[in-house]
């Protein structure tokens, strides 16, 4: 089977399974997208993990704990999909984790920021997970079937995280002036990372990733979907979005916004995020200190 026949399958709306023929370029593009997603689930657990012992009350501690457990579970399931894709290139999960820890592979920008207050946890679970659901919801239509399959389960769990975040935010928004101020500060901190979340506008939708239906929505389409859903809710809570140029344009049906400093975005993408090095070193510590567990359990070490 050649490229032409493969593209004809894609054009007919068929889905590609792990053991189907696929061009190397398709495999590489899927792999990059999927590994970045797995890395992001793994790294995304860290800002919230810091809050498990500090969350107010047992119910909130349990909820944050279970969210962190979900994210790690997502990482496990997505790495598994990536392993099957990577097998012909002789790349293992260990290689993927090493690439992440050594800074050769990317994880999502949004997980390089600190979460200094409890309100940050609410904003992350509501708006960052809301943004993630926007991206992952679109990817349910990806042409790579094993990824789409696992995303159905992941999206269902992310939707729970979103409700959990919404609950924290609503509690703070209806709380004391100090709680409202804490929430407003957290929103101000997270607005720029949220605008960066989907990447810069103006990308071409004619590239291989779109032609092969690996991706189905552009950065800007995803960002507008997010803004349409969440800006009205944020404003309804009486919060101030820190962008004086943000307004709805009736003619285009889009939200217009000020430049969210794309130079900063690129600086973070290249590994310069506030917490990038610190969080990667935490992962390095896990790998280096827990490797012995796997070694001890291996059959060659059995008594």
């Amino acid at each position, binding site marked *: 089977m050649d490229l032409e026949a493969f593209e004809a399958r894609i054009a007919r709306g068929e889905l590609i399974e792990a053991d189907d023929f696929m061009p190397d370029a398709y495999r590489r593009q899927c792999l990059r997208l999927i590994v970045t997603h797995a890395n992001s689930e793994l790294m995304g657990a860290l800002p919230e993990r810091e809050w498990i012992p500090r969350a107010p009350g047992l119910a909130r501690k349990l909820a944050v704990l279970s969210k962190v457990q979900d994210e790690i579970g997502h990482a496990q399931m997505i790495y598994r999909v990536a392993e*099957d894709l990577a097998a012909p290139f002789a790349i293992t*999960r260990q290689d993927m984790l090493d690439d992440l820890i050594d800074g050769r592979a990317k994880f999502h920008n949004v997980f390089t920021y600190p979460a200094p207050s409890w309100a940050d946890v609410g904003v992350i679970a509501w708006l960052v997970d809301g943004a993630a659901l926007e991206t992952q919801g679109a990817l349910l239509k990806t042409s790579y079937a094993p990824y789409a399959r696992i995303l159905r389960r992941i999206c269902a769990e992310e939707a729970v995280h979103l409700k959990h975040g919404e609950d924290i935010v609503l509690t703070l928004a209806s709380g004391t002036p100090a709680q409202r101020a804490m929430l407003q500060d957290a929103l101000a901190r997270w607005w720029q990372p949220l605008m960066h979340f989907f990447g810069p506008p103006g990308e071409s939708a004619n590239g291989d990733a779109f032609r092969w239906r690996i991706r189905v929505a552009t950065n800007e389409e995803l960002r507008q979907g997010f803004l349409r859903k969440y800006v009205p809710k944020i404003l309804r809570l009486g919060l101030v979005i820190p962008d004086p140029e943000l307004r709805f344009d009736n003619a285009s049906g889009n939200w217009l916004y000020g430049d969210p400093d794309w130079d900063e975005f690129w600086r973070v993408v290249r590994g310069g995020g506030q917490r990038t090095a610190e969080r990667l070193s935490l992962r390095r510590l896990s790998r280096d200190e827990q490797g012995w567990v796997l070694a001890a359990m291996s059959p060659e070490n059995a008594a």
Partner: protein
Amino acid sequence: MADLEVFEVFGLERPGGTVCHAGSLQALGSDLAVVLAQELFCRRREYIELWVVPRPCVCVAPRAGEALGPAEPRSYRLGSGYRGTVEKWKLFGGEHGGDR
């Protein structure tokens, strides 16, 4: 480094249901695979039973690009192949089929 194996996980959602593919995992041996399967796929009580199968034990029929089975239509295997019974019942009285 120890050799991790790939396992396919199948689950039963409710009594009397059908076991369906739940996902896939990597583990060191079947005991740990079962523990990890419960951690990964049953955090919300999704299944009442799990089958955890080493991937090489799953034998897959070659995919045809369409549903498997005999190529030509074989209506005699399907209920829809016997729609004529409605007309035939009319020979035995009444306006409708045999169920009235």
